[in-house]
Protein backbone atom coordinates (compact mmCIF):
# COMPACT_ATOMS: atom_id res chain seq x y z
CA UNK A 1 0.00 0.00 0.00
CA UNK A 2 1.21 3.40 -0.89
CA UNK A 3 0.61 6.20 1.59
CA UNK A 4 2.49 8.83 -0.39
CA UNK A 5 -0.28 10.14 -2.63
CA UNK A 6 -3.92 10.62 -1.64
CA UNK A 7 -5.23 8.89 -4.73
CA UNK A 8 -2.83 5.98 -4.35
CA UNK A 9 -3.86 5.58 -0.74
CA UNK A 10 -7.51 5.44 -1.67
CA UNK A 11 -7.27 2.97 -4.59
CA UNK A 12 -4.88 0.55 -2.93
CA UNK A 13 -6.96 0.50 0.23
CA UNK A 14 -10.08 -0.23 -1.76
CA UNK A 15 -8.26 -3.03 -3.52
CA UNK A 16 -7.20 -4.38 -0.17
CA UNK A 17 -10.75 -4.20 1.18
CA UNK A 18 -12.15 -5.84 -1.94
CA UNK A 19 -9.63 -8.63 -1.72
CA UNK A 20 -10.46 -9.16 1.94
CA UNK A 21 -14.18 -9.29 1.17
CA UNK A 22 -13.75 -11.62 -1.77
CA UNK A 23 -11.43 -14.10 -0.12
CA UNK A 24 -13.82 -14.69 2.79
CA UNK A 25 -16.96 -15.03 0.67
CA UNK A 26 -15.96 -17.59 -1.92
CA UNK A 27 -18.98 -18.90 -3.82
CA UNK A 28 -17.69 -22.07 -5.41
CA UNK A 29 -18.94 -24.00 -8.38
CA UNK A 30 -18.13 -27.68 -7.73
CA UNK A 31 -17.60 -29.28 -11.15
CA UNK A 32 -17.49 -32.80 -9.74
CA UNK A 33 -16.96 -35.61 -12.25
CA UNK A 34 -15.23 -38.44 -10.41
CA UNK A 35 -14.05 -40.03 -7.18
CA UNK A 36 -12.32 -36.85 -5.91
CA UNK A 37 -15.85 -35.62 -5.29
CA UNK A 38 -16.06 -37.77 -2.15
CA UNK A 39 -12.98 -36.04 -0.75
CA UNK A 40 -14.43 -32.70 -1.73
CA UNK A 41 -17.62 -33.54 0.18
CA UNK A 42 -15.58 -34.64 3.20
CA UNK A 43 -13.78 -31.31 3.16
CA UNK A 44 -17.04 -29.45 2.90
CA UNK A 45 -18.76 -31.32 5.72
CA UNK A 46 -18.68 -30.65 9.45
CA UNK A 47 -15.42 -32.39 10.36
CA UNK A 48 -13.11 -30.29 8.17
CA UNK A 49 -15.66 -27.53 7.64
CA UNK A 50 -14.69 -25.43 4.66
CA UNK A 51 -17.19 -22.87 5.89
CA UNK A 52 -14.57 -21.67 8.40
CA UNK A 53 -12.84 -20.08 5.40
CA UNK A 54 -15.99 -18.50 4.06
CA UNK A 55 -16.18 -21.08 1.29
CA UNK A 56 -19.07 -23.18 2.53
CA UNK A 57 -21.70 -22.21 0.03
CA UNK A 58 -21.56 -24.14 -3.25
CA UNK A 59 -23.54 -22.54 -6.05
CA UNK A 60 -24.70 -24.80 -8.85
CA UNK A 61 -24.96 -21.93 -11.27
CA UNK A 62 -21.79 -20.57 -12.90
CA UNK A 63 -23.35 -17.10 -13.01
CA UNK A 64 -23.42 -16.88 -9.22
CA UNK A 65 -20.03 -18.36 -8.42
CA UNK A 66 -16.53 -16.97 -8.45
CA UNK A 67 -14.30 -20.01 -7.92
CA UNK A 68 -14.55 -23.03 -10.21
CA UNK A 69 -13.54 -26.21 -8.38
CA UNK A 70 -12.78 -28.83 -11.02
CA UNK A 71 -12.98 -32.05 -9.04
CA UNK A 72 -12.20 -35.24 -10.94
CA UNK A 73 -11.04 -36.53 -14.30
CA UNK A 74 -12.07 -34.48 -17.33
CA UNK A 75 -12.55 -36.42 -20.54
CA UNK A 76 -12.29 -34.96 -24.00
CA UNK A 77 -16.03 -35.33 -24.33
CA UNK A 78 -16.55 -33.27 -21.18
CA UNK A 79 -13.95 -30.60 -22.06
CA UNK A 80 -16.29 -28.31 -24.08
CA UNK A 81 -18.79 -28.39 -21.19
CA UNK A 82 -16.11 -27.34 -18.71
CA UNK A 83 -15.00 -24.53 -21.01
CA UNK A 84 -18.60 -23.33 -21.35
CA UNK A 85 -19.07 -23.30 -17.57
CA UNK A 86 -15.84 -21.34 -17.18
CA UNK A 87 -16.88 -18.84 -19.86
CA UNK A 88 -20.28 -18.36 -18.22
CA UNK A 89 -18.74 -17.30 -14.91
CA UNK A 90 -18.57 -13.56 -14.21
CA UNK A 91 -15.30 -11.79 -13.48
CA UNK A 92 -13.43 -11.90 -11.21
CA UNK A 93 -13.10 -15.68 -11.30
CA UNK A 94 -10.58 -18.27 -10.20
CA UNK A 95 -10.07 -21.95 -10.99
CA UNK A 96 -8.90 -24.67 -8.63
CA UNK A 97 -7.67 -27.98 -10.10
CA UNK A 98 -8.62 -30.52 -7.46
CA UNK A 99 -6.85 -33.88 -7.71
CA UNK A 100 -4.01 -34.99 -9.91
CA UNK A 101 -6.23 -35.90 -12.89
CA UNK A 102 -7.24 -32.28 -13.29
CA UNK A 103 -3.67 -31.07 -12.70
CA UNK A 104 -1.84 -33.25 -15.23
CA UNK A 105 -4.10 -36.12 -16.29
CA UNK A 106 -2.73 -38.18 -13.41
CA UNK A 107 -2.15 -41.83 -14.18
CA UNK A 108 -4.28 -41.61 -17.29
CA UNK A 109 -2.40 -41.47 -20.56
CA UNK A 110 -5.01 -42.53 -23.06
CA UNK A 111 -7.39 -41.52 -25.81
CA UNK A 112 -10.14 -40.30 -23.48
CA UNK A 113 -8.59 -38.08 -20.83
CA UNK A 114 -7.59 -34.42 -20.96
CA UNK A 115 -3.99 -34.24 -19.77
CA UNK A 116 -4.56 -31.40 -17.32
CA UNK A 117 -7.40 -28.89 -17.47
CA UNK A 118 -4.83 -26.10 -17.77
CA UNK A 119 -4.66 -26.97 -21.48
CA UNK A 120 -8.27 -25.69 -21.74
CA UNK A 121 -8.83 -23.10 -19.00
CA UNK A 122 -6.37 -21.11 -16.85
CA UNK A 123 -5.76 -22.69 -13.44
CA UNK A 124 -4.94 -20.64 -10.34
CA UNK A 125 -4.34 -23.33 -7.71
CA UNK A 126 -3.25 -26.92 -8.27
CA UNK A 127 -4.10 -29.44 -5.54
CA UNK A 128 -2.51 -32.75 -6.61
CA UNK A 129 -3.20 -36.00 -4.83
CA UNK A 130 -5.20 -39.08 -5.65
CA UNK A 131 -7.35 -37.94 -3.96
CA UNK A 132 -5.85 -35.01 -1.99
CA UNK A 133 -6.44 -35.16 1.75
CA UNK A 134 -8.76 -32.54 3.22
CA UNK A 135 -5.72 -30.85 4.80
CA UNK A 136 -4.25 -30.51 1.31
CA UNK A 137 -7.47 -29.02 0.06
CA UNK A 138 -7.62 -26.51 2.91
CA UNK A 139 -3.98 -25.61 2.27
CA UNK A 140 -4.85 -25.01 -1.38
CA UNK A 141 -7.87 -22.99 -0.35
CA UNK A 142 -5.74 -20.76 1.88
CA UNK A 143 -3.24 -20.29 -0.93
CA UNK A 144 -6.16 -19.30 -3.15
CA UNK A 145 -7.29 -16.80 -0.51
CA UNK A 146 -3.81 -15.27 -0.50
CA UNK A 147 -3.99 -15.01 -4.26
CA UNK A 148 -7.42 -13.39 -4.15
CA UNK A 149 -6.18 -10.96 -1.51
CA UNK A 150 -3.30 -9.97 -3.79
CA UNK A 151 -5.80 -9.45 -6.62
CA UNK A 152 -4.07 -11.97 -8.88
CA UNK A 153 -5.69 -14.20 -11.44
CA UNK A 154 -4.17 -16.74 -13.77
CA UNK A 155 -4.72 -15.91 -17.43
CA UNK A 156 -2.41 -18.31 -19.25
CA UNK A 157 -2.89 -21.83 -20.50
CA UNK A 158 -0.39 -24.68 -20.41
CA UNK A 159 1.25 -25.46 -23.73
CA UNK A 160 2.09 -29.19 -23.89
CA UNK A 161 4.61 -28.62 -26.69
CA UNK A 162 6.75 -25.95 -25.04
CA UNK A 163 5.94 -27.23 -21.50
CA UNK A 164 5.29 -23.68 -20.34
CA UNK A 165 2.53 -22.53 -18.03
CA UNK A 166 2.47 -25.30 -15.42
CA UNK A 167 4.39 -25.47 -12.11
CA UNK A 168 7.67 -27.34 -12.40
CA UNK A 169 6.60 -29.73 -9.64
CA UNK A 170 3.85 -31.04 -11.88
CA UNK A 171 6.02 -31.53 -14.95
CA UNK A 172 7.18 -34.99 -15.95
CA UNK A 173 3.83 -36.51 -15.19
CA UNK A 174 2.87 -40.13 -15.68
CA UNK A 175 3.33 -41.74 -19.09
CA UNK A 176 3.07 -45.38 -20.03
CA UNK A 177 6.60 -45.28 -21.48
CA UNK A 178 8.00 -44.08 -18.14
CA UNK A 179 5.94 -46.67 -16.32
CA UNK A 180 7.32 -49.51 -18.49
CA UNK A 181 10.87 -48.19 -17.96
CA UNK A 182 10.22 -48.10 -14.22
CA UNK A 183 8.99 -51.70 -14.21
CA UNK A 184 11.87 -52.94 -16.33
CA UNK A 185 14.45 -51.27 -14.09
CA UNK A 186 13.32 -53.44 -11.15
Amino acid at each position, binding site marked *: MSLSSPSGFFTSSLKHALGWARKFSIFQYPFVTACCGMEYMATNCAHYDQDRFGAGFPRFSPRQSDVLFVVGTISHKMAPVLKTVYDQMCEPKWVVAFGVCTCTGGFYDN*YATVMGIDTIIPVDIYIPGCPPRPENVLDGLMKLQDKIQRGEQSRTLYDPHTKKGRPAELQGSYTIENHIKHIESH
Partner: protein
Amino acid sequence: MLMTPLQKLQEQFSSQITETHAFRGDETAVIRPEALKAVAQFLKETPELDFNFLMDLSAVDYLFFAGGRIQKPFRFEVVYHFYSLKHNYRIRIKVPVDEKQAEVDSLCDLWASANWYEREVWDMFGIKFKGHPNLKRILMYEEFQGHPLRKDYPYNKRQPLIGPTY
Protein backbone atom coordinates in the same frame (compact mmCIF):
# COMPACT_ATOMS: atom_id res chain seq x y z
CA MET B 1 -30.32 -86.87 -15.41
CA LEU B 2 -31.18 -83.25 -15.98
CA MET B 3 -29.55 -81.64 -18.97
CA THR B 4 -27.65 -78.43 -18.48
CA PRO B 5 -28.54 -75.49 -20.70
CA LEU B 6 -25.33 -76.05 -22.62
CA GLN B 7 -26.22 -79.70 -23.31
CA LYS B 8 -29.65 -78.65 -24.49
CA LEU B 9 -28.05 -76.13 -26.79
CA GLN B 10 -25.62 -78.72 -28.12
CA GLU B 11 -28.44 -81.12 -28.80
CA GLN B 12 -30.34 -78.51 -30.77
CA PHE B 13 -27.46 -76.86 -32.65
CA SER B 14 -24.76 -79.52 -32.84
CA SER B 15 -23.60 -78.45 -36.29
CA GLN B 16 -23.45 -74.75 -35.42
CA ILE B 17 -21.37 -75.04 -32.25
CA THR B 18 -17.64 -75.10 -32.90
CA GLU B 19 -16.36 -75.30 -29.35
CA THR B 20 -17.65 -75.58 -25.81
CA HIS B 21 -16.31 -75.67 -22.32
CA ALA B 22 -17.95 -75.83 -18.91
CA PHE B 23 -15.38 -75.39 -16.18
CA ARG B 24 -17.12 -75.34 -12.78
CA GLY B 25 -20.37 -74.15 -14.24
CA ASP B 26 -19.22 -71.37 -16.58
CA GLU B 27 -20.91 -72.90 -19.58
CA THR B 28 -19.59 -71.46 -22.79
CA ALA B 29 -20.37 -72.16 -26.43
CA VAL B 30 -18.59 -70.74 -29.45
CA ILE B 31 -21.03 -70.67 -32.31
CA ARG B 32 -20.99 -69.82 -36.00
CA PRO B 33 -22.00 -66.18 -36.63
CA GLU B 34 -24.84 -67.12 -38.97
CA ALA B 35 -26.50 -69.15 -36.18
CA LEU B 36 -26.51 -66.34 -33.62
CA LYS B 37 -30.09 -65.23 -34.15
CA ALA B 38 -31.46 -68.77 -34.00
CA VAL B 39 -29.41 -69.67 -30.93
CA ALA B 40 -30.48 -66.50 -29.13
CA GLN B 41 -34.11 -67.10 -29.95
CA PHE B 42 -33.85 -70.70 -28.76
CA LEU B 43 -32.27 -69.61 -25.46
CA LYS B 44 -34.90 -66.97 -24.85
CA GLU B 45 -38.03 -68.66 -26.00
CA THR B 46 -37.59 -72.26 -24.82
CA PRO B 47 -39.62 -72.44 -21.58
CA GLU B 48 -37.22 -74.80 -19.78
CA LEU B 49 -34.32 -72.40 -20.49
CA ASP B 50 -36.02 -68.98 -20.47
CA PHE B 51 -32.89 -66.82 -20.66
CA ASN B 52 -34.80 -63.59 -20.21
CA PHE B 53 -31.86 -61.42 -19.10
CA LEU B 54 -28.98 -60.31 -21.32
CA MET B 55 -26.45 -59.56 -18.60
CA ASP B 56 -23.53 -58.42 -20.71
CA LEU B 57 -22.50 -58.00 -24.27
CA SER B 58 -18.91 -57.19 -25.06
CA ALA B 59 -16.13 -57.92 -27.51
CA VAL B 60 -12.49 -59.01 -27.54
CA ASP B 61 -9.86 -57.97 -30.04
CA TYR B 62 -7.38 -60.83 -30.58
CA LEU B 63 -4.89 -58.80 -32.61
CA PHE B 64 -1.40 -59.23 -31.03
CA PHE B 65 -2.96 -61.81 -28.69
CA ALA B 66 -0.44 -63.15 -26.16
CA GLY B 67 2.15 -60.81 -27.60
CA GLY B 68 1.47 -62.09 -31.11
CA ARG B 69 2.36 -65.69 -30.22
CA ILE B 70 -1.22 -66.91 -30.64
CA GLN B 71 -2.78 -66.27 -34.02
CA LYS B 72 -6.52 -66.82 -34.26
CA PRO B 73 -8.29 -67.34 -37.59
CA PHE B 74 -10.58 -64.44 -36.71
CA ARG B 75 -9.83 -61.07 -35.23
CA PHE B 76 -12.72 -60.31 -32.90
CA GLU B 77 -15.03 -62.25 -30.70
CA VAL B 78 -18.37 -60.89 -29.52
CA VAL B 79 -19.28 -62.30 -26.10
CA TYR B 80 -22.83 -62.61 -24.74
CA HIS B 81 -23.69 -63.44 -21.16
CA PHE B 82 -27.24 -64.62 -20.61
CA TYR B 83 -29.05 -65.27 -17.36
CA SER B 84 -32.33 -66.99 -16.64
CA LEU B 85 -34.05 -65.36 -13.67
CA LYS B 86 -36.57 -68.18 -13.55
CA HIS B 87 -34.16 -71.13 -13.47
CA ASN B 88 -31.00 -69.42 -12.20
CA TYR B 89 -29.05 -70.53 -15.27
CA ARG B 90 -26.13 -68.72 -16.81
CA ILE B 91 -24.61 -69.26 -20.22
CA ARG B 92 -21.94 -67.53 -22.30
CA ILE B 93 -22.08 -67.40 -26.08
CA LYS B 94 -19.09 -66.36 -28.17
CA VAL B 95 -19.24 -65.39 -31.81
CA PRO B 96 -16.05 -65.05 -33.84
CA VAL B 97 -16.03 -62.02 -36.12
CA ASP B 98 -13.83 -61.47 -39.13
CA GLU B 99 -11.90 -58.22 -39.47
CA LYS B 100 -12.93 -57.50 -43.07
CA GLN B 101 -16.60 -58.13 -42.52
CA ALA B 102 -17.01 -57.07 -38.92
CA GLU B 103 -20.74 -57.54 -38.64
CA VAL B 104 -23.06 -59.73 -36.57
CA ASP B 105 -26.81 -59.83 -36.16
CA SER B 106 -28.38 -57.44 -33.68
CA LEU B 107 -30.30 -58.90 -30.76
CA CYS B 108 -32.24 -55.70 -30.07
CA ASP B 109 -35.57 -57.22 -30.98
CA LEU B 110 -35.08 -60.07 -28.48
CA TRP B 111 -33.53 -58.15 -25.58
CA ALA B 112 -34.09 -54.37 -25.50
CA SER B 113 -30.97 -54.00 -23.35
CA ALA B 114 -28.85 -55.10 -26.31
CA ASN B 115 -29.41 -51.68 -27.85
CA TRP B 116 -26.88 -49.71 -25.81
CA TYR B 117 -24.47 -52.65 -25.44
CA GLU B 118 -24.28 -53.01 -29.19
CA ARG B 119 -23.76 -49.30 -29.61
CA GLU B 120 -20.88 -49.51 -27.13
CA VAL B 121 -19.28 -52.42 -28.99
CA TRP B 122 -19.67 -50.50 -32.25
CA ASP B 123 -18.12 -47.41 -30.66
CA MET B 124 -15.17 -49.17 -29.05
CA PHE B 125 -14.44 -52.00 -31.53
CA GLY B 126 -16.12 -50.99 -34.79
CA ILE B 127 -18.20 -54.14 -35.05
CA LYS B 128 -21.49 -53.50 -36.83
CA PHE B 129 -24.80 -55.01 -35.76
CA LYS B 130 -27.13 -55.87 -38.58
CA GLY B 131 -30.68 -54.75 -37.86
CA HIS B 132 -29.82 -52.35 -35.04
CA PRO B 133 -32.34 -49.47 -34.94
CA ASN B 134 -29.89 -46.71 -34.00
CA LEU B 135 -26.27 -47.79 -34.41
CA LYS B 136 -24.25 -44.69 -33.49
CA ARG B 137 -21.53 -43.90 -30.98
CA ILE B 138 -22.56 -44.00 -27.33
CA LEU B 139 -19.39 -43.16 -25.35
CA MET B 140 -17.16 -41.20 -27.69
CA TYR B 141 -18.23 -38.05 -29.53
CA GLU B 142 -19.32 -38.16 -33.16
CA GLU B 143 -16.16 -36.34 -34.31
CA PHE B 144 -13.96 -39.17 -32.99
CA GLN B 145 -12.14 -41.08 -35.72
CA GLY B 146 -11.57 -44.81 -35.30
CA HIS B 147 -12.42 -47.21 -32.51
CA PRO B 148 -10.28 -46.80 -29.39
CA LEU B 149 -10.35 -50.34 -27.96
CA ARG B 150 -9.05 -51.90 -31.16
CA LYS B 151 -5.54 -53.07 -30.44
CA ASP B 152 -4.15 -51.20 -33.44
CA TYR B 153 -5.48 -47.87 -32.17
CA PRO B 154 -2.54 -46.01 -30.55
CA TYR B 155 -3.34 -46.05 -26.84
CA ASN B 156 -2.68 -42.35 -26.35
CA LYS B 157 -3.83 -40.95 -29.67
CA ARG B 158 -5.98 -38.06 -28.53
CA GLN B 159 -8.56 -36.27 -30.62
CA PRO B 160 -9.53 -33.26 -28.52
CA LEU B 161 -12.69 -31.32 -29.32
CA ILE B 162 -11.10 -28.17 -27.89
CA GLY B 163 -7.59 -27.32 -26.77
CA PRO B 164 -4.25 -28.41 -28.20
CA THR B 165 -3.57 -31.73 -29.88
CA TYR B 166 -0.66 -33.47 -28.17
